[in-house]
């Protein structure tokens, strides 16, 4: 049974216009952890020769998953914003395959939430990219 916070966060995340435009679907959400998928789309190609999705689209997926992990964390809150996000691109995502990112909000202070994320295509043993980020925490939410 999903708790109230996760339910509110789910509704909010499902309504983000840019994430919707990129075809993102929230696959799983629990306290402080989010999994979001993004299907392959030729409009998102960054390299015309290899047909690989542009890194920017992967960044958007990582940012959305990171924000979702923060929103669903009991000590953070819905009104979060990204302070800093670093993405490491390990390998090109295989064309036509869906990319799935999982983000974990592993630490929250009164002001900042810290997040780690990993993105994979069908070959889940070799991540496409990893990310670390810091997000804002809405005042008054933390105990």
């Amino acid at each position, binding site marked *: 049974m999903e708790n109230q916070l996760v339910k509110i966060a789910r509704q909010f995340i499902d309504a983000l216009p*840019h994430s919707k435009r990129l075809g993102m679907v929230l696959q799983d959400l629990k306290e402080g952890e989010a999994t979001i998928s993004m299907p392959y789309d030729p409009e998102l*190609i*960054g390299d*015309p*020769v290899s047909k690989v999705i*542009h890194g920017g689209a992967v*960044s958007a997926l990582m*940012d959305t998953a990171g*924000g979702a992990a923060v929103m669903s964390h009991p000590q953070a809150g819905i009104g979060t914003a990204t302070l800093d*996000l670093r993405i490491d691109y390990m390998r090109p995502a295989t064309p036509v395959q869906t990319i799935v990112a999982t983000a974990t909000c592993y630490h929250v202070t009164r002001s900042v939430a810290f997040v780690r994320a990993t993105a994979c295509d069908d070959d889940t043993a070799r991540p496409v990219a990893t990310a670390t980020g810091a997000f804002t925490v809405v005042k008054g939410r933390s105990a």
Partner: protein
Amino acid sequence: MKKPEAVATVKRRRDAALAAIVGQIPYIKFLNVSFDRHGDELTATMAYHDDLIGNPMLPALHGGATASFLEVTAIVGLTWVSQWEQIEQGELDLEALQGGAISLPKTIDFTVDYLRSGLPRDAYARAVVNRSGRRYASVHVEGWQDNRDRLFAQATGHFLMPDQDAKRT
């Protein structure tokens, strides 16, 4: 003394090269990003549209849209700088440039620093190539909206340069 080239010829060559670089990346079109050129200086514009919004309650640009915009600006800026000499010498066959003839650098890492929330209006960005070697490059990008001095985001990225030798064989 050699007679200087006609301004129209110079502009046509540079604009064709820029259009070829930009036109081969579908994601630039998806984001609605365009590039203005003054000499060798490029300024990117991400024209506002509702699909760029992250938080509809504020409303504010999605952090991912901002990151994408800055990364696209960095890649085009780096490609532009690295191809400039060839463009100026007329070594690039502009007819042949359609459909991916210019190899693009690959992003190794990209770090975005969000300074203020992105407003629901056009955003601008410029890239500076701080170091461009044979294999690696480091690029810094600044993004702003209404005031050039009030950045809403900046980013630094490292890129793997396309293999020049492989391309010539």
